[in-house]
């Protein structure tokens, strides 16, 4: 389902009411834009994953309503497309907050206290895995290894990996991210 993005009500409220998706650099999706992404890639051999990545990279998620469009263009059933999207942890069908945080849950990070870090982040943001904080700033996702295992524990925010993470360092990072976003806008 295409969830409409919140629209700024007055200029005074601009800072807080700009949709987190827009602040994260994503566009609002339309069937025409989705078709554009599909058409650019559909002739590649095995084009399905590249198409799903392109849609998620542009709109922040793969809206359920795009499934029939993808299915028709790729000559597959909706069930097949749904089956592919749901198989892969990376793909999501709901919009996200301004920052997506991936917390590494794998063994090397566990050996360096990632379980404590994980519970700290979840309680500080008030969001469990696959959820978004109430202020729409952060979406929390689990990840199994970021390949930064010699400097654990690690988290990923957007495309940036942060090593030797601790609850204190996380709090400073989260503060910086929320304030710098406000300053930018």
């Amino acid at each position: 389902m295409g969830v409409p993005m919140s629209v700024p009500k007055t200029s005074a409220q601009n800072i807080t009411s700009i949709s987190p998706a827009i602040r994260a650099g994503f566009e609002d999706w339309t069937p025409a834009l989705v078709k554009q992404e599909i058409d650019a890639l559909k002739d590649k051999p095995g084009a399905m994953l590249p198409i799903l990545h392109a849609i998620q990279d542009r709109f922040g998620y793969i809206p359920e309503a795009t499934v029939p469009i993808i299915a028709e263009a790729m000559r597959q059933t909706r069930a097949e497309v749904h089956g592919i999207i749901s198989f892969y942890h990376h793909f999501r069908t709901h919009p996200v907050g301004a920052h997506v945080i991936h917390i590494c849950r794998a063994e090397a990070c566990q050996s360096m206290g990632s379980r404590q870090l994980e519970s700290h982040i979840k309680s500080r943001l008030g969001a469990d895995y696959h959820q978004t904080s109430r202020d729409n700033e952060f979406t929390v996702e689990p990840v199994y290894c970021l390949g930064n295992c010699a400097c654990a524990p690690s988290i990923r925010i957007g495309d940036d990996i942060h090593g030797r993470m601790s609850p204190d360092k996380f709090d400073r990072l989260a503060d910086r991210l929320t304030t710098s976003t406000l300053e930018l806008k």
Partner: protein
Amino acid sequence: MSVKLFVPCDTTALSLGADRIAAALQREADSRGATVEIVRNGSRGLFWLEPLVEVETAAGRLAYGPVELEDVAALADSGLFEGAQSHPLALGLTEEIPYLSRQQRLTFSRIGITDPLSLADYRAHSGFAGLEKALKLSPQAIVDEVKASGLRGRGGAAFPTGIKWQTVLAEPEGRKYIVCNADEGDSGTFADRLVMECDPYMLIEGMTIAGLAVGASQGYVYLRSEYPVAHRMFKEALKRAYEAGYLGADVAGSGRRFDLEVRLAAGAYICGEETSLLDSLEGKRGMVRPKPPLPAIEGLFGRPTVVNNVLSLAAVPFILDQGGAAYADYGMGRSRGTLALQMAGNIKRGGLIELAFGITLRELMEDFGGGTFTGRPLRAVQVGGPLGAYLPESQWDSPMDYEAFAAFGGVVGHGGVVMFDDTVDMGEQARFAMEFCAVESCGKCTPCRIGSVRGVEVIDRIRAGDNREANLELLTELCETMVDGSLCAMGGMAPFPVQSVMKHFPEDLQA
């Protein structure tokens, strides 16, 4: 005169602030009127020293690390731009740091030395020498060279690479593929990532040679989506290799074609299994295929396909350049050449260690690793990723070798070594092994799909003291069923860590 500084740009250095360090060094130089050229090199793989800043001098490159933002001004004051060694972070000549000088770097000979995207750097360090030789050889002669090297698949299964290539070469001419498995999902491993971020042309060269060897003109690198830096670097390297004529219709002016594309995975551990990877590349759910048919005969899009790990393909340029025998000179028994060991987890000096097969775990953990990060006693080591057994101290003297490890139920796998101190709860680790399998199972076969879910439940009951003896017996049987009855290594090996905890750390499976 301009001074050359090096600040690495791999994921680990970046994760510890390398970009900010590079900017601060530039500011310090500007404010002092010093002219500097800052090269963003790859990492040397000495991760406990990252960000590792180097200064080029007449005597060689001098190292400083680990550098934090607050150190930059003091480093500049102490004369870093002139290579002065008075600051506490000064480490002397990089090449003489024992952790590095004691290694045998064949595959990783260039990492950290060069600018990963510079073709000139690559060529200046023997880059494309293997390809040039391969272009003068017949496909069979290339395959023979790889066979002579004794190279075995570095992804974990250790199947002889030359034999796999021979199978694909023997298939009738037509569309064939080279697929590189860069879905490096094992916790504690980062060697594939280092290749792609720090020496991407080596992988391009290795895949091109593989294409020449078996008669394939199209290659795919299947890269995990958890590696955004590797993706960025490798895409740029591909672009430059095409522009310079190393890929495309006329590889290095030979008239031969080889095209290469990187495809992003989507966060499914199972897609590191080769048949599931092929389904994913074809645009499907990454379900495991029964074997036979082997991918070498019916692989990607039903065509003969070489599926090799990054490290296997990355070893190929050296083998073609120096000869298979030169590679086979390293190693022990049937494990020839070097192994990229990755020291991770609770460790003081984590990083990449490339050595001939045969070093013991204890030497690695004590001589190289320097013990745990926390300084507490070491309790368990998991080698070979989430499907590898947890090894107690009694097993630390085994040499790193595929057969020696297999003899006691250990797994060398992709060479990841994850250390745990004495605060670890091994019952929790056993539970996680089953939980991970439940999350990541492709669902095709019952022992893996259902067994892992039941495994979590049974372990929970054991840890709660609920009918402990009977449930331990049930867990033993469940593990055996999964090992014997699963279609692929995921379900077949997920019980290994659990079994090792039951055998060596039973005290942690108490209520």
